[in-house]
């Protein structure tokens, strides 16, 4: 069976699209706070925050303590720490992540969020949607759809100068 060999997406080009998409979303709901999913999503949220000239700091959510694969994989090393510098009670939130796949990370992150209070609404914007959803979770903005085989993994990296790039890894290759 041949697996698709996609070209690695241009993360900077997709970031530009995400920036415009998020600008549009905030235009209709300006009281929305950005929350990045650790780690790639947190990088994106930090840069969006700066580029959009928003006040304060974006939130960071770690999914590590609510993952559903703890029994198989154990505690993820260096899973990051949740940092919400504002009250989320009654707050409109836009979650930011790099790659949307099964939806399990977002499920865990939403559980984590609820340990801090009850937001008014939660939406999701992502750089890449690679399909393969196992939960009913969708993004309101997606910069690109990419087809990947199950053993392929797309991971975002951030250079010292803050520029983003994607790396495509083959598991068990």
């Amino acid at each position, binding site marked *: 069976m041949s697996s698709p060999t996609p070209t690695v997406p241009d993360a900077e080009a997709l970031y530009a699209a995400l920036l415009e998409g998020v600008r549009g979303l905030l235009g209709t709901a300006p009281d929305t706070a950005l929350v990045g999913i650790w780690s790639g999503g947190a990088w994106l949220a930090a840069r969006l925050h700066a580029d959009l000239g928003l006040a304060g700091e974006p939130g960071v959510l770690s999914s590590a*303590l609510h993952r559903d694969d703890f029994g198989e994989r*154990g505690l993820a*090393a260096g899973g*990051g720490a949740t940092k919400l510098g504002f009250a989320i009670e009654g707050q409109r939130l836009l979650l930011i992540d790099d790659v949307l796949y099964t939806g399990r990370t977002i499920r865990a992150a939403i559980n984590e969020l609820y*340990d801090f209070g009850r937001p008014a609404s939660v939406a999701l914007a992502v750089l890449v949607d690679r399909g393969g959803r196992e939960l009913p979770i969708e993004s309101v903005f997606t910069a690109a759809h990419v087809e990947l085989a199950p053993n392929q993994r797309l991971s975002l990296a951030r250079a010292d100068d803050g520029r983003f790039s994607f790396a495509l890894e083959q598991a068990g290759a």
Partner: protein
Amino acid sequence: MLSRRNPQLNRHGELIHLLSIEGLPKAVLTQILDTAGTFLSVNDRDVKKVPLLRGKSVFNLFFENSTRTRTTFEIAAKRLSADVINLDIARSSTAKGESLLDTIANLSAMHADMFVVRHSESGAPYLIAQHCAPHVHVINAGDGGHAHPTQALLDMYTIRHFKGDFSQLTVAIVGDIVHSRVARSDIHALTTLGVPEIRAVGPKTLVPGDLREMGVHVFHDMAEGIKGADVIIMLRLQNERMSGAMLPSAGEFFKHFGLTADKLARAKPDAIVMHPGPINRGVEIDSSVADGTHSVILPQVTYGIAVRMAVMSTIAGNEA
């Protein structure tokens, strides 16, 4: 030569039981300290609970009484959503003549997932770890004069929190070292984490002679022993030791080895003072020091819960 695998680690080198600090690699200790940092922030949330051990049963087996240590393990397990069963073994099965392994077999039949064991005999947690089902994890909560690994880890967390880095530190451990499983575990942890200067300070009768072989500097003069120290770990003087010929009196001990503000002035100006508790005011530590600005005794208690959460979630996530 036959090399025996460390019974605390699986074949991937991951921690499956916590029995002793001795023999654990630096990376394992550091990972627990990092994980504890994550759990410390759980205390700041509206919901002070995470679901990592949901559906798991943690049995606290305290063959030797220690309400405080048992409580910190209980809180840690409950914050991880485990079901906690406290067994006052000292007053039940053992009193009826049941052997340790029969007790464990019975509790395993009740579907235990984790045993937290405090025992007056050194090595009891090892025996349990060797004989329990493969999916069961064991934590040593203090065995005889041997080890108290979670206390050592919370001490290391405290030191790292206040001092940042281990590689430049002078750490003095003061008091009844010979009977102290805390001192033994602390020395192993400090050594593994790269502390260059570890000192043991106490009267000749209470400091074991073999410490020098572990690279520890021994002092029988308190003023000399804590001079220039960054960290002072005071040990509890156990009253029961007074009856033997080891010490003339509590007052005499305080005069020579009790930590007072005068003696503390010999340490670095930003030195921290630690104590595993419960403290004997006026025996090993003066009240003005225990409650003073150098004291981090209460933060130790807070960190202890996060460290025990880290240990429990780490071993529960690793398979034998």
